């Protein structure tokens, strides 16, 4: 278990990723409280096809609705969203 204790984060999937994963929301407790740690946890939870969709290069990750990189630290109750390529208008 990581220093400082385990944290529970809410993971959300949108649009094509929600369809690929089959759920819009998961609660995950990563071993290491960073986005990289969460990715490791998800790689273990999801099957190969689901993980491939989530890990695609075009997918951006938002922590509490702001785009972040893999070294972002996670705290209890954080919301991490996996966002496929966007288009509006």
């Amino acid at each position: 278990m990581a220093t400082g204790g385990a944290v529970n984060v809410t993971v959300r999937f949108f649009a094509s990723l929600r369809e690929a994963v089959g759920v819009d929301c998961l609660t995950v407790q990563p071993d290491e409280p960073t986005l990289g740690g969460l990715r490791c946890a998800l790689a273990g939870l999801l099957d190969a096809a689901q993980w491939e969709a989530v890990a695609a290069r075009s997918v951006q990750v938002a922590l509490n609705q702001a785009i972040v990189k893999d070294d972002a630290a996670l705290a209890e109750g954080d919301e991490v969203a996996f966002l496929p390529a966007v288009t509006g208008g």
Partner: protein
Amino acid sequence: MRADVRIQTADFDIAEEWAACRQRCGGAAGAIVAFGGLVRDRAGNADVRGLYLEHYPGMTEASIERICEEAAGRWRLLDATVIHRVGDLASEDQIVLVLVASGHRPDAFAACEFIMDYLKTDAVFWKKERRRGGDVWIEATPSDRQRRAGWKRTA
């Protein structure tokens, strides 16, 4: 500048929004430019029956507010309204309204186009075409990205 960003499933009335904008700006406005985006028949593709739009409540509004702020930093604007619909839309439905008021015409024209171009590439929406053979998620096109990149060069 006042920016009003609304994400809704309901349709909107351009005339109503125009009148409200005029009233808010009073005598300060010399120009209002409105852009209305519609769901068009996809290039005669009879297989496409409509669109489904999804957003991330909170983050989507913030992404559009940022676009409006950026526009306000480039041009002298009085007021901006962006209404974007989500959910299921059919051919000919209204999908988006961008309404910009300024003291002067060039600023209003440019800002309206800028906001619309950025909505295509930077606003947090996902769009699915409902086709007879199955639904397909679509992305910003290369020409959408080129238009956005064009604004960077001239900034």
